[in-house]
């Protein structure tokens, strides 16, 4: 799948993210009104990370790379575990198999996350006036099914799509830049994703961060940590 067709396909998350400033948001942007911090020893379930890494071939074709994805998954998981410890929350495990049960909630969360990424973190012309500039989305009581099953009070959803230019593509990119005398800066690869913290009693999205940038590398542990830090920038402390 070509990047251009990916964009044409209405992948507004990617596009909107690219057009957005991409700088760090003020803390208030990431948090629902009235939410400040997690209670100490809050029980947090990390939903299975939804991640896919691609290579971009010379011709601009996106190709899924399973070994990179596998490595990135592991790096992210390790970084999340470390984060949880530093936050003083109690981690609750959820296997992929158990997650099957919550697929409808998961699919719904995906749609909400896309909505938030576009209408809250995207360019200002997509803001929804009725939301009044606030992070004000809730999945409602259906999320209690996750709470009842896992014993957790909060859930963290993460989603990442990342692409890396192959060597041929990098060479091609340099050639394009030179030939256009610097007018065209082709994309080497784009990292986009989100992290979302949901209250498993009310269904409210308490905290959300959207990530979009043209740097970062999830394929290596050290650099993956950097990506995760960016993703979880402004994540609430526990009190």
């Amino acid at each position: 799948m070509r990047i251009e067709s990916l964009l044409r396909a209405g992948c507004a998350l990617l596009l909107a993210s690219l057009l957005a400033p991409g700088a760090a948001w003020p803390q208030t942007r990431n948090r629902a009104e009235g939410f400040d911090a997690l209670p100490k020893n809050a029980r947090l379930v990390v939903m299975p990370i939804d991640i896919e890494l691609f290579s971009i071939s010379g011709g601009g074709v996106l190709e899924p790379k399973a070994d990179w994805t596998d490595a990135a998954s592991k790096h992210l998981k390790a970084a999340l575990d470390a984060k949880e410890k530093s936050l003083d929350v109690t981690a609750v495990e959820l296997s992929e198999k158990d997650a099957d049960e919550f697929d409808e909630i998961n699919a719904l969360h995906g749609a909400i996350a896309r909505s938030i990424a576009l209408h809250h973190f995207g360019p200002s012309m997509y803001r929804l006036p009725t939301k009044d500039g606030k992070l004000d989305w809730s999945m409602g009581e259906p999320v209690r099914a996750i709470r009842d099953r896992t014993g957790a009070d909060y859930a963290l959803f993460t989603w990442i799509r990342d692409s890396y230019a192959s060597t041929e593509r990098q060479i091609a990119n340099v050639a394009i830049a030179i030939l256009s005398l610097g007018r065209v800066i082709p994309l080497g690869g784009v990292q986009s994703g989100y992290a979302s913290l949901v209250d498993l009693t009310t269904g409210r999205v308490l905290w959300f961060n959207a990530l979009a940038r043209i740097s970062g590398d999830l394929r290596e542990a050290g650099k993956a940590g950097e990506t995760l830090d960016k993703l979880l920038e402004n994540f609430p402390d526990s009190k």
Partner: protein
Amino acid sequence: MKRALLALPILLLAGCAAVTKIAPGETTVGERLVVKLDGAWNQINVQNMRPAQLWTMEGIYVDQFRLYSGIKDGQAIHPTGGNASQKSFNFRSNMQPDEIAGLFEGMLTRDGSRFTLARLEPVAFGGLPGFRLEYALIRKADNVQLSGVGYFAVSRGELFAILYMAPRLAFFQRHVGQVEQIARSAQVKE
């Protein structure tokens, strides 16, 4: 992207505001459809939702409120000029309620989404004899399961309709009350 979002609205990116606020009170859709809102809605300026107007409360990937005003005989209920080999869903003035329901079902399932009719009943809409539709839709693009409701009437050979859909978990119940109230308030002007 996790899923091909082909079925979902592609936003106009150039120039002016993509989203405008519809304030509470009376508002006219097209030339002949007047509705009264108790609360504000967000109107989204989109390419591929015409001839419908598109409103939303939670964002386009979550809930969609489509309003059709004055669709003429032979007019498609979706944008045309795209894939020539794809079937076109055109309104005809002599369509019966069951045929109009079938028309919208066809349009909603063009992308492989799965439609199930829950209820189809005669009801006054816009001050005219019309009908009401309740349905379930499993969206192909991202597997989200939606509930939907629609109101339809034909006046002077033109179609007037409002169609609301939102995820069946939590969201549909949250806003459908407003939609039903808007439906009750609707007037088709002569």
